[in-house]
């Protein structure tokens, strides 16, 4: 950590500006957006496709910067986030705000000029949803924050799809729904073993408000809905057997791991092996499911 004076924090390092975009979250955004684009009917010129992914990534980075600008007080008291540039004192809030707004405007304009204005409007809405609806409005006011806020993370594949087709179709809605219903079990598994962090910060995460057992049961409930939504493209004939087999297998494992979480009674975070396992698998699940969709399209083509 750099110990810097007030003047130096006004000139954030490039490394910290990059960290403000949450690069690890961005990798999932890039991947799902790319899959949405590859799964869409029709074709897109590689240069335009690259630009669309770049714009979606910059939009996600902008949302992350605005999120950290607003949440620097919460981040400072949570162990997991206290090392971020703002709470660690390596950057001032004004820089983060300017960076976030600048990147938002640039990403939307880039999408509109190079790709199409429908996906640009979609991207603008997703940034607004994450930065305002989720971060400013929902996160501190309701334990349903993750459920509704999950929509923000579910937009990228639909935007990738819209970059190719210029509209929203049944398959892009299903891709949206998959991430939407994946988010609560993914985040609540994390929140269960990070419970003390969230309660210390006063964030009304489900385990803090409804208790661990209720959260565990809801994780299992959402996993069942996720499994149904994940298999739907195959059942409805929108995807082939490769995707269908992968969706059934992966969702089966997801539900089994969620069932172990639902049965767990552990109270100590260090003993929450089932929750940690589900959290790790949930990340793999999303990557594998979307990769299977693309593989399915390639094989069918």
């Amino acid at each position: 950590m750099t110990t810097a004076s007030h003047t130096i924090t006004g000139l954030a390092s490039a490394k910290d500006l990059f960290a403000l975009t949450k690069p690890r979250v961005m990798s999932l955004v890039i991947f799902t957006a790319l899959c949405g684009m590859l799964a869409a009917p029709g074709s897109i010129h590689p240069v335009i496709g690259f630009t669309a992914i770049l714009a979606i990534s910059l939009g996600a980075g902008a949302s992350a910067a605005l999120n950290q600008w607003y949440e620097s007080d919460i981040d400072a008291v949570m162990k997991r986030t206290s090392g971020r540039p703002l709470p660690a004192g390596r950057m001032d809030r004004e820089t983060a705000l300017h960076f976030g707004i600048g990147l938002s405007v640039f990403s939307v304009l880039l999408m509109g000029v190079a790709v199409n204005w429908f996906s640009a409007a979609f991207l603008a809405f997703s940034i607004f949803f994450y930065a305002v609806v989720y971060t400013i409005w929902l996160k501190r006011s309701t334990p349903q924050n993750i459920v509704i806020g999950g929509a923000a993370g579910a937009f990228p594949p639909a935007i990738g799809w819209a970059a190719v087709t210029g509209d929203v179709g049944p398959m892009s809605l299903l891709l949206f729904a998959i991430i939407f219903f994946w988010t609560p079990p993914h985040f609540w598994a994390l929140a269960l073993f990070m419970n003390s962090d969230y309660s210390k910060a006063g964030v009304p995460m489900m385990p803090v408000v409804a208790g661990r057992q209720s959260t565990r049961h809801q994780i299992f409930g959402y996993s069942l809905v996720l499994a149904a939504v994940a298999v739907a493209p195959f059942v409805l004939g929108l995807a082939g057997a490769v995707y269908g087999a992968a969706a059934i297998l992966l969702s089966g494992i997801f539900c089994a791991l969620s069932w172990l979480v639902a049965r767990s009674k552990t109270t100590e975070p260090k003993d929450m092996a089932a929750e940690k396992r589900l959290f790790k698998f949930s990340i793999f699940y999303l990557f594998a499911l979307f990769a299977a969709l693309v593989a399915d399209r390639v094989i069918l083509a």
Partner: protein
Amino acid sequence: MSEIDKDKPPMSPEEQKVYQARQKHRAVIMAALLIFMVVLFYLITIVKIGSGS
């Protein structure tokens, strides 16, 4: 945001060094990004003209 605030105490030589190193690093990255964007917009223009849109 990158201006030196006259109301604040002057920077120490070490801080001055860090400040100038950051300025230089950011300028190099900004130049690389600008070149990248010029190339990207050139390619976008070629593709758009080629497709007639």
